[in-house]
């Protein structure tokens, strides 16, 4: 398989090579976080009822019953398709029977994983503002550095994080009501007073990673997805599902993408990818007086000759597409919650995640791949709007889940494949480094500074010193939240316990 180990060399270029590097690394913007060597084993039609407050949309007498009446179940039509990846062949009828059975049970603890694609620069998100640290920070990256206090001119300001003794501050795009974030909720409201008590729901690891750093996007992502410092055929959550998940319900783990995230690649447990809910129609631009969808449906209904797989496939797929779009007519696809940043892919995916989780289908894992954080050049204008969307999006997501009555059952983890170098380059950007920002959010989470900030003392490679092994966080998420034995899922453990600013070691309240 191709890899991108060239980046390791490129990053050692002198500063003068930064421009060339910035161009080259744009290649990496296309994500390889998805499993592309596996094709889905089947497509699972998702009934509209499933998203419309399921199981209330189904007669109660049928809950958990054997032999679900498919016609009743499908009476409002399909709302989308899931691409199912399964070791064994599953019939969709039996899948939905399994989902019905799940729906009758109380919701289990779930996790949403947001992958910041490209290598997020954590140092410009959580800024060391103690005086000695700040001067070193400013010296290392003067062309992109934050300023202390309110933003001034082109310089973005910072807001001190409570409970850190004044040593750390949020960059203002992350903070509500400041900078370019005008919403009333954001990182700061999630973080609260940082005590880990009620209302302090955001755990922050300023420098989580592994050592030694591998600066290849591809290999480093694979490590994070595998939960191991090597490339494995399964993801850490896929192995957790193999051990503790369902063998029948692919909706237990959903990648909101065109195919599967490597995080949930499993050996035996069925999982799935859902790119979108809601459908599209066959349309001809400029034609308003005839219904292309209806006419295509008539063409799809022409019978193909026996044994002609190609034409048969074409007509049946065209017919299916017409059916799906017809059935969706008049249905609201996804019920959006309020407060999401408008028109962003992250908002769309978080809304979809909230809808899925709220539907009670036994979904325990949702993966989201988002953003373009490979900021080799023009970092401030590229990263800050995304930080702002992330901050507002996380707060809106939490409120959305709360409105659905399931917020206490969901935690959200945010990570990236690596952090970036302490020193900026001549393109007002930063190159691949180590020690990135990792977050865990949710009212079940003991908020606050949960990992040490290493300060900006440049190590031999110009990187932040990694203070938290990323697998320590996975270990806590399994042990304290999802359930099960972390040692059975994460090779090479046990890993050091989490080290909170106040001396504690628990991730959850």
């Amino acid at each position, binding site marked *: 398989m191709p890899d991108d180990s060239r980046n390791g060399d490129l990053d050692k270029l002198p500063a003068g090579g930064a421009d060339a590097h910035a161009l080259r690394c744009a*290649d990496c913007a296309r994500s390889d976080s998805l499993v592309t060597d596996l094709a889905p084993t089947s497509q699972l039609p998702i009934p509209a009822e499933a998203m419309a407050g399921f199981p209330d949309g189904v007669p109660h007498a049928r809950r958990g019953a054997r032999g679900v009446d498919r016609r009743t179940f499908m009476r409002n039509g399909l709302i989308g398709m899931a691409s199912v990846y399964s070791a064994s062949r599953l019939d969709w009828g039996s899948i939905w029977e399994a989902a019905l059975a799940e729906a009758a049970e109380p919701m289990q603890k779930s996790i949403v994983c947001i992958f910041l694609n490209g290598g997020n620069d954590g140092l410009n998100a959580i800024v060391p503002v103690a005086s000695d640290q700040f001067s070193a920070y400013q010296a290392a990256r003067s062309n992109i550095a934050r300023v202390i206090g309110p933003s001034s001119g082109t310089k973005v300001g910072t807001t001190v994080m409570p409970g850190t003794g004044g040593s750390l501050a949020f960059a203002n795009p992350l903070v509500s009501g400041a900078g370019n974030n005008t919403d009333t909720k954001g990182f700061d409201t999630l973080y609260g007073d940082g005590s880990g008590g009620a209302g302090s729901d955001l755990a922050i690891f300023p420098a989580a990673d592994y050592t030694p750093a591998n600066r290849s996007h591809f290999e480093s992502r694979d490590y994070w997805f595998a939960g191991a410092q090597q490339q494995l055929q399964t993801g850490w959550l896929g192995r957790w599902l193999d051990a503790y998940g369902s063998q029948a319900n692919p909706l237990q783990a959903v990648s909101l993408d065109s195919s599967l995230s490597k995080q949930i690649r499993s050996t035996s447990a069925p999982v799935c990818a859902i790119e979108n809910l809601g459908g599209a129609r066959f349309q*001809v*631009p400029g034609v308003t007086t005839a219904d292309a969808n209806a006419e295509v449906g008539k*063409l799809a*209904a022409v019978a193909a000759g026996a044994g002609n797989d190609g034409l048969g496939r074409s007509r049946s797929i*065209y017919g299916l597409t017409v059916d799906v779009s017809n059935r969706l007519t008049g249905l609201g696809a996804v019920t959006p919650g309020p407060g999401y940043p408008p028109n962003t892919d992250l908002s769309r995916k978080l809304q979809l995640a909230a809808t899925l989780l709220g539907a009670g289908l036994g979904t325990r894992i949702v993966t989201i791949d988002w953003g373009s954080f490979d900021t080799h050049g023009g970092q401030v204008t590229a990263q800050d709007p995304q930080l702002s969307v992330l901050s507002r999006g996380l707060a809106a997501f939490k409120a959305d889940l709360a409105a659905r009555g399931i917020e206490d059952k969901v935690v959200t983890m945010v990570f990236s494949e690596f952090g970036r170098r302490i020193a900026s380059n001549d393109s007002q950007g930063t190159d691949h480094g180590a020690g990135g920002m990792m977050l865990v959010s949710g009212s079940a989470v003991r908020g606050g500074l949960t990992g040490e900030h290493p300060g900006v003392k440049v190590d031999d490679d110009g990187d932040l010193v990694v203070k938290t092994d990323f697998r320590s966080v996975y270990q806590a998420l399994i042990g304290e939240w999802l359930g099960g034995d972390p040692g059975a899922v994460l090779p090479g453990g046990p890993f050091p316990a989490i080290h909170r600013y106040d001396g504690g070691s628990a991730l959850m309240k």
Partner: protein
Amino acid sequence: MSRLAYSANKRRKRKAKRAAAVPRRHRLSLPPSPSVDQTIDLGSMSPTMVDRLFWRAGFGPTLQDRTAWTGKPVKDAVAWLLGTPAGVSGTPGTNAGKPLDPTGDDTDLVLSWVDRMVRSTNPFPERLGFFWHRHFANSRMSVSPPQLLMQQNDLFRKYADLGANPNASFADLAHEVTINPSMLRFLTGEYNVKGAPNENYARELMELFGLGVTGPAGTPNYSEDDVKQLAKAFSGWQIDDSNPDAATSYFTPDRWYNGPKIVFGKFGNYKYADAVDLVLAHPSHPSFFVAKLWNEFVAAPPDAATLAKLTATYTGSGLKVKPLLEQILSDPALFASLTEPNMVKPPVVYVVGAMRSLAAGITDTTATDHLDSMGQLPYFPPTVAGWEGGLSWLNTNTALARFGFVATLLSQMTIDDTPGETAASAYDRAYAAIGQPWLAPGTQAAIHDFATRAGSGTSKLRKERQLMLRALMLAGPDAQVM
């Protein structure tokens, strides 16, 4: 199973309904269709046979192709396709009013190849060149600078332009590809150095490019040791891309593993060319390659006798591609299911074919946007194994993208208004404007039925009827097969 079974059931119901609704006289009044001809006479092609050959070996027939080759022997047309040097005609494509800039913009990189396919005077070299890209799949996702991929594209064209290079052999291509800068970068051969062998290329050369994992009898073609040993023979090559427009690869003896290697049980101090030869001399290579090339053009796999005959031709010619292609493209199996095309068009073939049918050129990113949604963006294969293809091309998303592409193209074209035009004339005009492609009789009836139902009292109604007729003919389910 569930989706298709479910859908087939719906289809049967709809079919029963529709059959009752379409009066028989509509079917009788249809224009003559090439699909009526069912005979396969290799000595004198029917229009349907011409269509079949030009879809499989190109991007569909032009009206001139159909006229010129009807009544002629298949072997003459195949000789023309395989013997006419590559060339382009017409105005070079543009993107938003600017000349394409393939080295500055990846979209333009893709557009420039699609443009070349659309404007090719002999489509076969572009079609075979694209096959080489699918076979030796390198992706822009990990190859930079883009010039390396363009250079590789030229290499593929050299081995696809059989008019200019009639003696092209897979062996020569495999030798060149092995030390091609793009391949050295994509499969990290440039990091293959003695003491730290990189097995990437050695493995793929056997698994994907030359042999397959197992042979015809199901036994492994190579061992993990063979991979390790072969990798040593490939060590020592690097890329000089200091001038991206003239990148070269070079061999540094000091980086080469200078020592004995054992590959397939044979012992020697092999270098890269020896290693390629060892793989090509493996007994599984000929049938592996012949079957893959066959599957590019023919829906059903070759039967044992055909495979044996083709393999003999291939090995007997010294692994040349032209004699092999002559036999594949003239085989009666290419013309199977003539009344009902049975292969799904790959997205690139569908897109280029539709543009050629409409005499449309590249002027914006419509083609690349939709190719991406259809799942086949040239220069961006999903893995080193290329695209899976076949029936997997079609799902509900790609069906919408396929229809949407042609509908978008059509909506950008000028359509004349013809007051007083009858439904039958409107049908005929639309059919002629899109190149008279194959449509099943039932499909013709359904489209004809639309023409009679559609309003025609105003200029707007007539134009929309014409637009819809063309879209149904060129973008519906029947247009997805060849």
